[in-house]
């Protein structure tokens, strides 16, 4: 390893100095960029009028064909990516280059360091050194469980996979659960019990809390309060209930920042009781999503995605697909797979809902039409008709962000359509304590302010000082509490104001239990001893109940001992093995919307809409959970921070998202810092112009702008909670946005790794332009008429267009196919790849330099109009080309073809010339410009997958098709003397994908899905006209538009063939 480092370094310096001679100093140029003017939208529009932009486009810069974008497209990396960030002089370079040449030989004089083998003293029965074990457990988000299998290497959990038997997972995962292992090992987690800023002890805490409790006992627990987030844990609920029985005047409060605030209120109004609503997408033929990100956001999104995709996949024997309409204010992942997308401001979405309800005879008919927009009117009529035609097989989903009244209407609409019991199921609440969060928190704040709280115990990482509505003044009231205790994974804004901070145990370190969206209970089992002596919420509650030494294991087992009748040990082991407790699903209950509730809701929505319309120019600010760091709880997780957010492709920041037209009207530019004011509260943020954002609507995601979130997350992005008040938890109408000039530097990846398809050069009107597009889209109708419609226009080169004879694959012949039809862009695959392949994070500054390391990227394309585009996703891993352009240019043969068709990357040979990435038309190769991997921190080292090399500085890397899994599967099957059973080998991205959009396998095996997909008439290769013969191919996207909304002629005219 060390031997080549010097030559690597030499090469690096020489490359850098070549660039150095060509341009100015890199650092200097970067500074210019920083102070550059923001992109002016009107200018883009003006330029667009002169010439027509490409049909599929990635960013406003591309539409306007700015010189910066052109350069980005023609280069392998953005400019300056290849230069040293510090200003190193030419002389310095030459000195270093000379020195490294002279010393290159010396590096060869080292020998391998001596290593130790440390066997067990008594080897545990199940552990076979070198083989991972898998344990079924669950991870929670907002309290709801997702059943997972955790991979453990000699006691170290390294990877999370979905549990195929668990109803919420079906084998797939979301980004949060994929990233859980990083949180587990995060060195920034709090590592000791803190009392008033100093390290203290558990017994110290127990005695101090015990003293307060004893004092409160006489008063029945008056003044004792517990604050949790949403919890579904039966054990914790029983413990807290037990505590409340012992201390009847104590109170249990709840605050979940991105919880079911409006959903709960709507259920109370519609049914008079808290109700859990769940959907069955497998039965839904026509779906209307109202401002809803139901496919990627929420406790059941993984399951919903799977069911949705199953009905969307078009195959020769089933040329049918469901239809999805999206009406929304801010683009969602669901709308990227929608057949029709209508963007409306939040109030108009509600108006739309009302109009739809009326069209379906719900909520009483209004004398005047609710909608004045003729387009929306047509939509309502058409959709109402479509839904009615599919009564019982249709589904209307509205997200949490809609007003309670609007959600009551949606309940009523589903009822009117006969969807209850088929696509919509109601059950008893899954949450243990279904109370309205806001009222519960407000009551706590009121009592705290009045000095009526003596002990406040904040469990499981709640961080109300940061997340509570700004108008409640939580932080101020908290100071009046006698004893403040915070229990969480991190020291945060809340713990800073508390007397005690107790480190929490991570879900992979502790015993617990949780319910999933349908009520199924999973027992959460630890994969590792707590790294930092963390305590679980169960142990915290037990300590208050005079059992400070009770372990989580005892507590959870004790609870289930009362519930699992008969053979407890057998049932317990079964539940642990399977990952869930059988028959704990909550049965559907028959419910009807209360009489008059819909009527009343309709009136309310109408009044709200009228109010909003009275100020037509007011900007509505929407708060949404962040797609990667949620409500801020994952802020320290650098995988999630660096994951490009699905719609914006932003990393490390949130932004005030506004549409192009609105930005123009407000006079603010792209990336311009602004001041947002709402009811006297002000927030400095920066604008990100997002095509597809509804007019007069701004969106800001939660979770950023934290002050005490550790080294990586503090003071990053903009704190939406500063503007979020209790009367505007999701939408704040009438905010003021004022441009401040200048430019905020966002690290967005949307312009990185742009591919040149050649389509840019061809006149748009011609048919050829379609075939060269990197994303290919057709309609179901076209497909039915001629399934080969796409093949007719493919430019696949002749198979013998090669100087070498074609290789015959006798054994395996690996390949991958990606179905664009069902990819929602959720990015689980990206994090799964990162976890599996030891991919490092690089930080915002390095992302700005275009040095992000993700092997798999999800490209997001806009199509058509700048203001109201359609949105498409395309995951791009390495294509493993048969005639790979990278292979022929490598001077040291560090990237070569394997006899099974893989484009192998040999790290130990690579000297870092980067010729390969320069020659890759797909731009999927990533270079370690610096030493990004953490090899020192003993805790972080535990995270690495032992089957994959941790790369050093100066080497190229890229997607390997998870070659470690291939080799493992091959070895296992060969040892057992058979071939790999079809479809039993999955890449990490494939395994994580909720919609099963990715298949991988042996193209020599007729039973492998990949072979079948590749024979599909929708199959095409990316940039195949270059004769690279990619092994990763795509199935073109099909849309199923309603002919009433999009007549066939119109489509051809717009070239949406």
């Amino acid at each position, binding site marked *: 390893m060390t031997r080549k480092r010097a030559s690597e370094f030499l090469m690096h310096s020489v490359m850098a100095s070549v660039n150095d001679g060509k341009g100015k100093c890199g650092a200097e140029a970067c500074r210019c960029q920083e102070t550059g003017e923001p992109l002016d939208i009107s200018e883009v529009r003006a330029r667009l009028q002169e010439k027509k932009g490409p049909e599929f486009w990635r960013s406003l810069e591309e539409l306007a064909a700015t010189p910066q974008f052109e350069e980005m497209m023609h280069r392998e990396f953005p400019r300056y990516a290849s230069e040293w960030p510090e200003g190193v002089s030419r002389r310095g370079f030459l000195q270093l280059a000379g020195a490294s040449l002279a010393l290159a030989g010396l590096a060869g004089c080292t020998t391998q360091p001596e290593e130790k083998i440390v066997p067990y003293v*008594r080897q545990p029965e199940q552990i076979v050194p*070198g*083989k991972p074990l898998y344990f079924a457990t669950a991870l929670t988000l907002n309290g709801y469980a997702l059943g997972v299998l955790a991979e453990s290497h000699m006691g170290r959990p390294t990877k999370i996979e979905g549990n195929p038997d668990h109803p919420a997972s079906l084998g797939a995962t979301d980004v949060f659960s994929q990233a859980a292992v990083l949180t587990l090992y995060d060195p920034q987690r709090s590592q000791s019990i803190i009392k008033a800023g100093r390290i203290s002890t558990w017994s110290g805490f127990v005695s101090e809390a015990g003293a307060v409790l004893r004092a409160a006992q006489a008063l029945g627990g008056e003044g004792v309060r517990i604050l949790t987030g949403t919890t579904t844990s039966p054990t914790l609920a029983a413990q807290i209930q037990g505590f409340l029985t012992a201390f009847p005047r104590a109170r249990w409060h709840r605050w979940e920042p991105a919880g079911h605030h409006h959903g709960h209120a709507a259920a109370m109004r519609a049914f008079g009781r808290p109700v859990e609503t769940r959907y069955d997408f497998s039965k839904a033929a026509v779906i209307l999503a109202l401002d809803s990100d139901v496919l990627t956001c929420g406790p059941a999104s993984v399951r919903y995605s799977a069911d949705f995709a199953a009905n969307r996949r078009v195959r020769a024997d089933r040329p049918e697909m469901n239809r999805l309409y999206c009406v929304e204010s801010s683009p969602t992942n669901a709308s990227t797979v929608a057949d029709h997308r209508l963007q409306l401001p939040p109030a108009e979405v509600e108006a739309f809902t009302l109009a739809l309800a009326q069209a379906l005879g719900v909520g009483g008919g209004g004398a005047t039409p609710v909608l004045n927009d003729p387009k929306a009117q047509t939509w309502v009529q058409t959709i109402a008709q479509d839904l009615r035609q599919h009564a019982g097989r249709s589904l209307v989903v509205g997200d949490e962000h809609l007003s309670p009244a609007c959600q009551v209407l949606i309940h009523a609409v589903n009822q009117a359509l006969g969807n209850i019991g088929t696509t919509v199921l109601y059950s008893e609440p899954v949450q243990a304590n279904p109370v309205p969060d806001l009222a519960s928190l407000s009551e706590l704040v009121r009592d705290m302010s009045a000095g009526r709280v003596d002990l406040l115990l904040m469990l499981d990482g709640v961080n109300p000082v940061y997340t509570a509505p700004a108008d409640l003044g939580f932080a101020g009231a908290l100071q009046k509490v006698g004893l403040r205790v915070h229990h969480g994974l991190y020291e945060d804004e809340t713990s800073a104001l508390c007397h005690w901070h107790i480190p929490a145990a991570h879900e992979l370190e502790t015993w617990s239990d949780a319910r999933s969206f349908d009520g199924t209970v999973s027992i959460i089992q630890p994969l590792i001893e707590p790294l930092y002596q963390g305590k679980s919420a169960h142990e915290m509650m037990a300590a208050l109940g005079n059992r400070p030494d009770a372990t989580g294991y005892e507590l959870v087992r004790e609870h289930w001992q009362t519930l699992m009748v008969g053979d407890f040990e057998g049932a317990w082991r079964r539940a642990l093995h399977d990952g869930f407790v059988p028959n704990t699903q909550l049965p559907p209950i028959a419910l009807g919307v209360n009489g008059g509730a819909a009527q009343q809701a309709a009136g309310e929505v109408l009044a709200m809409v009228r109010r909003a319309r009275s100020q037509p120019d007011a900007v509505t600010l929407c708060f949404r959970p962040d797609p990667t760091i949620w409500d801020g709880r994952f802020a320290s997780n650098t995988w999630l921070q660096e994951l490009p957010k699905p719609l914006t492709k932003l990393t490390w920041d949130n932004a005030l998202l506004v549409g192009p037209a609105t930005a123009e009207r407000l006079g603010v530019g792209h990336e311009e810092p602004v001041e947002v004011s709402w009811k006297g509260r002000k927030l400095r943020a920066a604008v990100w112009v997002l095509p597809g954002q509804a007019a007069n609507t701004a969106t800001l995601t939660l979770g950023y702008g934290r002050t005490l979130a550790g080294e990586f997350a503090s003071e990053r992005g903009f704190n939406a909670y500063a503007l979020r008040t209790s009367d505007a938890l999701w939408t704040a109408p009438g905010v003021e946005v004022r441009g401040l000039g200048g430019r905020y530097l966002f690290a967005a990846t949307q312009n990185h790794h742009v591919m040149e398809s050649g389509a840019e050069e061809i006149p748009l009107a011609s048919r050829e332009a379609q075939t060269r597009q990197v994303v290919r889209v057709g309609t179901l109708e076209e497909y039915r008429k001629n399934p080969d419609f796409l093949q007719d226009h493919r430019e696949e080169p002749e198979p013998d267009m090669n100087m070498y004879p074609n290789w015959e694959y006798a*054994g395996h012949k690996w390949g991958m196919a990606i179905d664009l039809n069902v990819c929602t862009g959720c990015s689980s695959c990206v994090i799964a790849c990162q976890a599996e392949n030891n991919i490092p994070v690089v930080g915002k500054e390095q992302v700005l330099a275009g040095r992000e390391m993700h092997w798999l990227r999800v490209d997001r394309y806009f199509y058509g109009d700048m203001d109201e585009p359609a949105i498409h996703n395309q995951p791009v891993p390495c294509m493993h080309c048969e005639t790979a352009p990278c292979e022929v240019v490598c001077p040291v043969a560090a990237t*070569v073809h*394997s006899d099974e068709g893989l484009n192998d990357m040999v790290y130990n040979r690579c000297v870092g010339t980067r010729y390969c990435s320069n020659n890759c038309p797909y731009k999927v190769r990533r270079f370690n410009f610096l030493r990004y991997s953490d090899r020192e921190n003993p805790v972080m080292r535990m995270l690495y997958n032992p089957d994959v090399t941790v790369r050093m500085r100066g080497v190229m890397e890229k997607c390997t098709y998870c070659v470690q899994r291939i080799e493992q599967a091959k*070895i296992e099957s060969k040892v057992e003397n058979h071939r790999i059973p079809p479809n039993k080998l999955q890449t990490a991205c494939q395994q994580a994908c909720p919609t099963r959009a990715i298949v991988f396998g042996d193209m020599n095996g007729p039973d492998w899905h990949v072979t079948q997909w590749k024979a599909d008439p929708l199959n095409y290769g990316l940039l195949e006209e270059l004769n690279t013969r990619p092994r990763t191919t795509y199935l073109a996207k099909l849309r199923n538009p309603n002919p009433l909304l999009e007549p066939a002629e119109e489509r051809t005219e717009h070239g949406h063939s």
Partner: protein
Amino acid sequence: MQIFHRSTNTVAKVSIFGSVFFLAFFAWVFSTLLRSSYATGQGVVLKQPVPFSHDHHVAGLGIDCRYCHTSVETSGFAGIPPTETCMNCHRQIWTNADLLEPVRSSYANDEPIQWTRVHDLPDFVYFNHAIHVAKGIGCVTCHGQVDRMPIMFQQASLQMEWCLECHRDPSRYVRPREEVFNLNWQPPVDKAEAQAMRARLVQEYGIRSMTSCSVCHR
């Protein structure tokens, strides 16, 4: 005016001519050093906490390889025995031997014995024992006559060219599966017979030349 002395011509000729030899010599030194036991660790006896003798346990007592290296047939890693395996016998024999003190104290204090790794491949190489055993490659082929090693040492160079020697043409080293753990097995003396046996085994075990990079480097 003559700047250089007349002899410079000769010096120049000799040094140009000589540099070829010098470079060749340098290359020879380099390649020799690279293959020397200094660089490869071949044949070097390392210090171990307990002077465990394979000679005594294997040749003397006849213990099978798999008694200690339990996972060699199923996992990539052959397995180093836990202290408990040693104590299976040594709680009854040689219970007071000074040599075994580290073993006893490990067992008593629940502290693992830290062995020095003898066969240490670079971290970017992924070797798998199970598949080699399954394909009929004997222990002795790579590890040498372990039963004649009082202290374990590395028999082969473990360099890539050494691996490739077999990976390019595995038929030369294949043996019947049932003889994999037999350290004293010899192929049939008759050349033709040996050839036939190997050809049969290659066929039967489905042995192929495996020289793609990703077979070992990931």
